[in-house]
């Protein structure tokens, strides 16, 4: 990209983005460029793909959950092209790093949307939750010792219980399912529940670390 084009791009992004100032946008664009350069071996085009994205988020924010990262990617990838453009990148990071509760919630709903959209039933939500919580302890299940197995069985029971608890707490219209409105209401009441279905937003420490790392490079 020519220097002039970069400048134009930065200007337009600065105008559209609520969360970053000009120098910060510049940094993010720079970062994007390096990432694209890295990705170009896999994928040619004006963006980078799932793997690079996942790697980046993993190293920057310590998000490990693959399922979730996939969904974060889909959320970033508004145009559904399978690659993230520079605009999507800056806007997505805006929500991730500096987003208000509203924006984060909307993003979350987007994240969870696919599942609900496909199977908006109680069981599916349950299965999803089970998968979520089961996932993190899969290492336990893979262990072969019988004592561990017993523990795992207990844990699974616990997970079921927990799903009940969560449903009871968040199901405001008592239809046995979690709808968007339910979720929205629950999160408004208790912002902690934002992450109830698995972590996909970075915590503040890694955000600060990331911002320091990226924005420090600003040529002032």
């Amino acid at each position, binding site marked *: 990209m020519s220097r002039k084009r970069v400048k134009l791009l930065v200007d337009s992004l600065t105008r559209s983005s609520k969360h970053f100032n000009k120098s910060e946008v510049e940094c993010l664009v720079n970062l994007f460029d390096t990432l694209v350069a890295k990705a170009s071996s896999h994928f040619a085009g004006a963006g980078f793909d799932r793997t690079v994205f996942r790697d980046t988020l993993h190293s920057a924010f310590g998000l490990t959950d693959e399922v979730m990262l996939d969904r974060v990617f889909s959320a970033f990838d508004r145009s559904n092209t399978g690659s993230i453009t520079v605009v999507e990148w800056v806007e997505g990071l805006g929500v991730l790093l500096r987003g208000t509760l509203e924006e984060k919630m909307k993003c979350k709903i987007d994240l969870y949307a696919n599942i609900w959209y496909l199977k908006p039933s109680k069981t599916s939500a349950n299965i999803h939750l089970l998968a979520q919580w089961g996932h993190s302890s899969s290492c336990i299940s893979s262990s072969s010792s019988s004592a561990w197995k017993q523990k795992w069985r207990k844990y699974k029971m*616990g997970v079921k*219980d927990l799903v009940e608890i969560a449903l009871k*707490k968040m199901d405001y219209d008592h239809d046995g399912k979690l709808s968007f409105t339910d979720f929205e209401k629950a999160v408004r009441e*208790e912002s*902690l*529940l934002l992450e109830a279905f698995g972590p996909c937003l970075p915590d*503040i420490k890694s955000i600060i670390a990331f911002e320091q790392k990226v924005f420090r490079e600003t040529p002032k």
Partner: protein
Amino acid sequence: MFPNGCRAPPWRQVHGEICYLVIKPHDTDPLYITCSTAGVFLNGGQLKGKEIDYERKSNLYKDIVTFLRERSPRFVENMAKQEYSFFKEPAHENYQHVEDAEIFGQSQSFHEFRRMTVCGRGKSSSLGSPGQRLKPCMKWKNSELSASQRPKSSSDKSPKKDSEEEGKSSTVSLTTKKKASGKSKTVKIQEASKCKASSSPEDVGESSSETDEDEQPLRRQEGSTDLSAEYWGVQKLAKYVKGGDPTATVIALCSMRDLNLSQETCQLAIKDTGCLEVLINLLDTEEIKCQTGSLKILKEISQNVLIRHAIADLGGLEIMVKILDSPDTDLKCLAAETIANVARFKRARKTVRQHGGIKRLVELLESISVGSSCQAKDTETARCGALALWSCSRSTKNKKAIRKAGGIPLLARWLKCSHTSILVPIVGTLQECASEPSYRLAIRTEGMIENLVKNLSSENEELQMHCASAIFKCAEDEEIRDLVRKHEGLQPLSVLLDNSENKQLLAAVTGAIWKCAISRENVLKFQEYKTVETLVTLLTDQPEEVLINVIGALGECCQEEENRSTIRKCGGIAPIVKLLSATNQALLVNVNKAVGGCAMEPENMLVIDSLDGVRLLWSLLKNPNPEVQASAAWALCPCVENAKNSGEMVRSFVGGLELIVNLLKSKDKEVLTSVCAAIANIAKDQENLAVMTDHGVVPLLSKLANTNNNKLRRHLAEAIAHCCMWGSNRVAFGETKAVAPLARYLKAKDPLVHRATALALYQLSEDPNNCVIMHENGVVKLLLAMVGSTDDALQEAAAGCIANIRRLALATEKAKYG
């Protein structure tokens, strides 16, 4: 350490050995002992390196105490002082608990240490230098017994109960036992395995000695642990809080918040299920979500006294102070709010201070983010910080710490904002701190009075109350009183008097009026606002703290002549005189002052006399409190002066004159001064003076003559002047050596002293011997200067005195030379 709790290596465990200790008594060499299931015995000591000679070198004793009794006479001596009833249980059960600490301390702290380990609080905290800072904790008697009763595998929750029991008993027994502890010998128990983790008994000991104004956890009835629905709910959720990944924990925490956490059963259920420990442990993690969730619960349940103490005991405060450094604002707010709840007792406040919490809390007030959108958040942060500071500011040292951390300008800045939610804690903190002179100075110089006055007219009664009590405390300083007037704070104060429902507010407002009324100009303002009339209506049916302030305010207003008659016209004298028979000493002091003020007007005096007020005042001279005595004596002065037939009235009090003369033996300067003033007034009546002379008033007054206190000098000189009028008192004063010191009073700088002294000297100079003494002390020169004074009384007295001296000189000359 091995999983079964033993310290001994496995090959020794087969012999039943549990651990090896080194005990260093005061009077003998270090003892190397082995604790085994069979009992305690001396082993061969430490060989080179870490090896221990396991060989048994002594008889087998059933426990350490028996062993030490045998070995160390000093130990027996000190044990005897502790009235310690030893238990007959098999001893080795306790040694199970002597686990992971290297303890330095006195014999009691050894037991204290045992208690600590039993309680599962082997967590490390700061350890003082050996034996020096350790304040012995007297809780071991209790703990010993409870330890003996406890089964080997002590459950999680029982230790907490014990520590509470001990916490309670210690405060009761500490004072008596403290004396014995100073001499107690040092038993140094050292784990052979050199484990460094140790607990700090001094913390507990020190704090439990500070019991003033502290809340004490009330012992809960044992029966109340009936397992309610909440209990099971909590227990179920506790399971998920404990186990599972962060997401599961967060959901469980959120669900727990849906329980009714303000309910006591629920709070205690959280404590009893061991959930509290988990919540506190969660604070120590890196997971912000979990920390937030946990703090949200802790904030709620820390309303409970028991929970507060438990949180402090579990080291929760330290972690919360650490959280104050977190980058997450919400988390900081929650931590500060929880600290505000927990820091309601002294030990907690001390912990917060010692871990640098004050500085961090002050920093919360500092936060300014850019942009207007963040302002709400800033206010919230500051509010939480202020709340915590408010709680902390109840300790004097914390007040200093806040000042050092630069908190005052920040408080001043926030005081200017208009949100009631933040103003309440800010003003609350200021109000707490205003007891320190340095804060009062700062409040004045930072211009906070203006805002305090402004907030008096706020809607919020709590805020009004704190503002009023801040002014109450600040108005001790004259400049502040003037500032309050300049900022027109007196009118809102008088307006607030109409709100007589809220007693706390009323107490604070009347207090502020009282202190403000010390300045004359303020009294004039109050007259304008008809405050005196309102105050008089508040004399009946009010709680004591309101009464004290109301009476105090009236007493100050009485200094103004107009108000004295106002009080009479409003019918205020009867209730005031009635209060003379109260018992509260602070109240009595103020009542005395008010009565004294009223009595300055002869018409009032009639009323007081008809209500038998003088007799009541007189009987207050018997009060053991010197302040009450002094104020009563002051009040008597105008009474005696203005009453009709005062001489007869005074004589009618049987033993009254003897009583007042005997008060001259008091050690309190103020009492002496006031009594001298009263005697000066009483002595105006010849008969009374005669009675007082019989009771030996002359030598008692003479004894006081060698004082440097100008106020006392003045009233003493007056008393002497009046007492000279009877019989041979003039000669007696000379004989009791009162004249020479009196002559020196003329060198003082206070003109009032000069006047009284000149009067006294004039009276005394009627006796030739006194004239000689005066002349020897160089009085004439000083008096000559005073003849030129503008004060008529002084002039006259000085001249009279000189005349007397001169006359004597002439007479002697005449006698000599014929």
